[in-house]
C-alpha cells in the first residue's frame, strides 16, 4: 500500500527521525494559516501517489503566508500524471547544505531487506543506480538483528558520508530500519536526507510502501488507505476483496488464479483484442463472488464485452455458471459475454450456460477469439 509523504514522515517521527515542522492543507487558506504558524519561508508539496511531482510543478515555495496561499492555490487541483492534487504538505523551508540518500527495499534475491545509501541524494536513485552505481552502497539486513547502530555507521562510512553526518545519520538509518521492519514495509526511503547550513540532519522527503499482507497488524496505517488512485475502481475492488487492475482496453477479463488471468490477458491480446482489466476471483469462489466480479467489471464504461476463463479445481463450474446467470440481469443489455469452463463441474456449468443462452468457448483460445469477434461485430454494427 502506498502512503503519502506526510504519512511516511509521521511514521519516521514515531521512530525519532527529525523532520521539518509542518501540516497538511486542503485549501489555500489552510496553507496560509499553517505558514503563519510556522513563521518564515515554507515549501508547499503536492501529496499524490506518484514520483516526479517536482518536475511537474507540484513543489512550490512561499516566503510569506500570502505567498504560501498563492503557491497552494497553484498546486491544489493540479493534475500530476493523471492524479488530481487534493492536499498539500506545508513545511518550513530548510537551508540545505548537502543532500544524501537513505533507502531500504525488500530484495527478492537475498530474501531480506537491503539498505542502500548514497551521498548522491536529492535525485532519482534509479538514475544514480543506472549511471553511477558505484555511488550506491548496499547491504542486506539480518532480520534476526535488525540494523544495529554500528552497522548503520559502517555503511555510511563506506559510502563516504562526511564524519559530521555519520553519528546522527547512523541513528537515523538505524531508526529507518526499525520503522521498515516494525511497519512491515516493502520500501522505505529518505531522499533527500539533508545536512542543513546550521548543522542539523533531517529527513526532507520520505517514501514508504507498506506490505498489504501485513496491514492486519497495523490497523492505524491501514486506515490511511484512500480512493485517490488513478482509477477509483481499483480502490473499490480492494474494499470488496477483489483483485482488480484497470487496463486500457475494452475486453473485460475475469479468471481464477493470477497466472491464468495474466495468460488470458495475453491470449486476448494475441487474438487482436485489448484487455480492459485484470480480475482474479481466487480459489473456490462461489456464485455470489462470480456475479459480483461480473457486475464490477461491467461498471468500467470502457468495457464492451467480458471473457470469463475458469479452470475448475476448488472452484466449481456450476457455481461459476450460476454466478454468470445471476449477474446477467444486472449487466447492460447486449453486452457480449463468453465463458470458458474447464475442470471440476465444467460439464454441468456449460449445460447451465447453454440453457441461459450464453456463449461459451471450448478452450481459452477459442473463448478469446469469440469475445474479440463479438466486440468487433458490435462495433461494426454501431458504425454501420
Amino acid at each position, binding site marked *: 500500500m502506498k502512503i503519502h509523504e506526510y504519512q511516511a514522515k509521521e511514521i519516521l517521527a514515531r521512530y525519532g527521525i527529525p523532520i521539518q515542522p509542518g501540516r497538511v492543507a486542503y485549501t489555500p487558506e489552510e496553507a496560509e494559516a499553517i505558514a503563519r504558524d510556522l513563521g518564515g519561508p515554507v515549501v508547499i508539496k503536492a501529496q499524490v501517489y506518484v514520483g516526479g511531482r517536482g518536475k511537474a510543478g507540484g513543489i512550490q515555495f512561499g516566503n510569506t503566508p500570502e505567498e504560501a496561499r498563492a503557491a497552494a492555490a497553484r498546486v491544489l487541483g493540479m493534475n500530476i500524471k493523471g492524479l488530481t492534487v487534493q492536499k498539500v504538505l506545508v513545511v518550513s523551508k530548510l537551508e540545505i547544505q548537502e543532500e544524501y540518500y537513505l533507502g531500504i527495499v525488500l530484495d527478492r534475491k537475498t*530474501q531480506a531487506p537491503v539498505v542502500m545509501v548514497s551521498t548522491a541524494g536529492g535525485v532519482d536513485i534509479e538514475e544514480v543506480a543506472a549511471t553511477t552505481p558505484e555511488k550506491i552502497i548496499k547491504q542486506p539486513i539480518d532480520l534476526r538483528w535488525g540494523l544495529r547502530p554500528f552497522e548503520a555507521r559502517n555503511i555510511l562510512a563506506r559510502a563516504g558520508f562526511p564524519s559530521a553526518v555519520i553519528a546522527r545519520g547512523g541513528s537515523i538509518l538505524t531508526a529507518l530500519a526499525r520503522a521498515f521492519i516494525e511497519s512491515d514495509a516493502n520500501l522505505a526511503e529518505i531522499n533527500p536526507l539533508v545536512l542543513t547550513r546550521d548543522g542539523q540532519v533531517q529527513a526532507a522527503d520520505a517514501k514508504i510502501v507498506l506490505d498489504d499482507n501485513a496491514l492486519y497488524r497495523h490497523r492505524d496505517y491501514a486506515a490511511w488507505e484512500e480512493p485517490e488512485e488513478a482509477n477509483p475502481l481499483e480502490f473499490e475492488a480492494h474494499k470488496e476483496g477483489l483483485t482488480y487492475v484497470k487496463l486500457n482496453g475494452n475486453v473485460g477479463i475475469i479468471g481464477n488464479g493470477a497466472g491464468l488471468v495474466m495468460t488470458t490477458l495475453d491470449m486476448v491480446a494475441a487474438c487482436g483484442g485489448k484487455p480492459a482489466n485484470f480480475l482474479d476471483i481466487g480459489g473456490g469462489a462461489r456464485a455470489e463472488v462470480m456475479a459480483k466480479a461480473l457486475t464490477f467489471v461491467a461498471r468500467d464504461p470502457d468495457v464492451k464485452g467480458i471473457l470469463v476463463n475458469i479452470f475448475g479445481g476448488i472452484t466449481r463450474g456450476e457455481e461459476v455458471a450460476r454466478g454468470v446467470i445471476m449477474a446477467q440481469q444486472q449487466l447492460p443489455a447486449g453486452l457480449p459475454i463468453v465463458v470458458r469452463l474447464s475442470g471440476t463441474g465444467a460439464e454441468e456449468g456449460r449445460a447451465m450456460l447453454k440453457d441461459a443462452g450464453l456463449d461459451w468457448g471450448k478452450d481459452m483460445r477459442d473463448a478469446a477469439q469469440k469475445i474479440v469477434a463479438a466486440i468487433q461485430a458490435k462495433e461494426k454494427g454501431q458504425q454501420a
Partner: protein
Amino acid sequence: MSILLDEHTRVIVQGITGREGSYHTTRMLEAGTKVVAGVTPGKGGQSACGLPVFDTVAEAKAATDANASCIFVPPAGAADAIMEAASAGIKLIVCITEFIPVLDTARAMLVVREHGATLIGPNCPGLCTPGQGKIGIMPYQIFTPGPVGFISRSGTLTYEVVALLTEAGIGQSTCIGIGGDPIIGSTFVDHLKLFEQDPQTQAVVLCGEIGGSDEEDAAEFIKTMKKPVVAFISGRTAPPGKRMGHAGAIISGNTGTAQGKVAALQAAGVPVAETIFDIPDLVKAALARRV
C-alpha cells in the same frame, strides 16, 4: 523416479483441522499420498481425516517418522508453522497459505536454510508426482506419469498447461508450483537442478511470469543443462508498477518484464511458447531431439 515426492515421502498436514486442511488432506489421501498425521495446536489426541492429530510437529514426527509437511495454517501463523517444521527436522515443506506478510516469510527462510530443508511456496499449489500422489491442492486427475518435469509460479495456469500436455499424450515426472510471492522457498533453478539429476525426467517445462528475475537466473543455469527446457512467460500485456494478482508479479521500472525474460530464455537456447497451446508441440520436439 521423480523429484522431491516419491514412495518414501511421509506427509503431515499442519492445520489439518481447518476447512482447507481437512478438505485437501482427503484429496491427498485419495491420490495415494502417504499422509500419516496432522498437527493442530490444542487438538492433540483427536483425529481428523482418519489420521491422528498432534499439538506439535515434533510430536507428530516422533510418532510417525514423517519427512514432509503440507501447511494450510492461516497467514498470521503460517511462517511460524514453516519454522516449526524446519526446526523439527522436516526436510520437505510445502506451504499453500497465501497472503503471508513477506518479512515473515523472509524470517522463516532463515530457519529453512539453517536446517537444510526445502520449502515449496508459500502461496503455491504444491507439487504432484503422478502415480505417487500429491502434496497440496493440485487436481490430481489431470496428471499422467511421464518424462516431463514441470515448474511454474502459478496454480491454475499449471493445471491448464498440464491438461494440455496430458491431452497431447505427454506425461509428467513431477510438477511443482513454486508460488507467486516475492520471496519463495525454492526457485526455478533449485528444481531445474533436481530435474537434471532425475533419471525419469527427459525434458522440463518452465512457466514463468512477470516480476523478479527467477526466469533470468533459470536461463543462466539452463545454459549448463543437458536436458532440454521449454518455457512460457505470462504477463506480456501487464503494465509496469501494477501487482497482477500475485504479490510477486509486478514490473518495477525496467526489471521483471515478460519481454526481458523471454529474451533471456531464448538467448539460453530455450524455445519460448507464444501461447500455451504451442507448449505440447515444443515439448514433443524437445523430446525428439533428446532421443
